């Protein structure tokens, strides 16, 4: 299987967010919200670092 960097990172963020949401909160609603929050943080880091590399590297 050959995924590019972006697809791989999205997949990694997804599986990590599922487990982080599952093991950290008490109710199902809190778990869902925290999982989505983690996924959002992963995405923010992905796009932030991606753009930073593009700007700094040229």
């Amino acid at each position, binding site marked *: *299987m050959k995924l590019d960097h972006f697809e791989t990172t999205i997949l990694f963020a997804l599986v990590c967010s599922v*487990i982080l949401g*599952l*093991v950290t909160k*008490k109710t199902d609603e809190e778990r869902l919200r925290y999982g989505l929050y983690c996924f959002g943080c992963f995405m923010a880091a992905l796009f932030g670092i991606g753009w930073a590399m593009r700007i700094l590297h040229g």
Partner: protein
Amino acid sequence: MPANAVTAAPIAPLRSPILLIPLAWFVPGAGHFLLGRKWRGLIVFATVLVTFLVGVAMRGPLFHPVDNGDVLSRLIQFGGYLGDLASGVFYFAATFMGYGPPDVAGYSPDYGSKFIVAAGLLNILAIVDAYEISTRQKD
């Protein structure tokens, strides 16, 4: 007991952590399943399996402890080996079936290797969660 007393909700049967932790390690999600959290156990199992299989599909090499090399390399290899091992039955099934691609250059096998380790680390998080449930520290 007063007539208007509220009866407590039935508490899921708690298991001994001594049995629970090795089982939760060997079969990801089994700890939650035994504690009556069947859906959560199923999600843990599926997530760890998908992560491991993605790593295998990307031909990620497994880590092995080495005796030669500098301290940092040995530490990375040993840490990666522990991460691989934490996947439990998936790691043993893969090695039993002869999985062991060479460590070649390229980003895809490199990501694959990290996915296999991440599967084990996610399983460790699930084991800790199952332990806390079994000791009534959380629901």
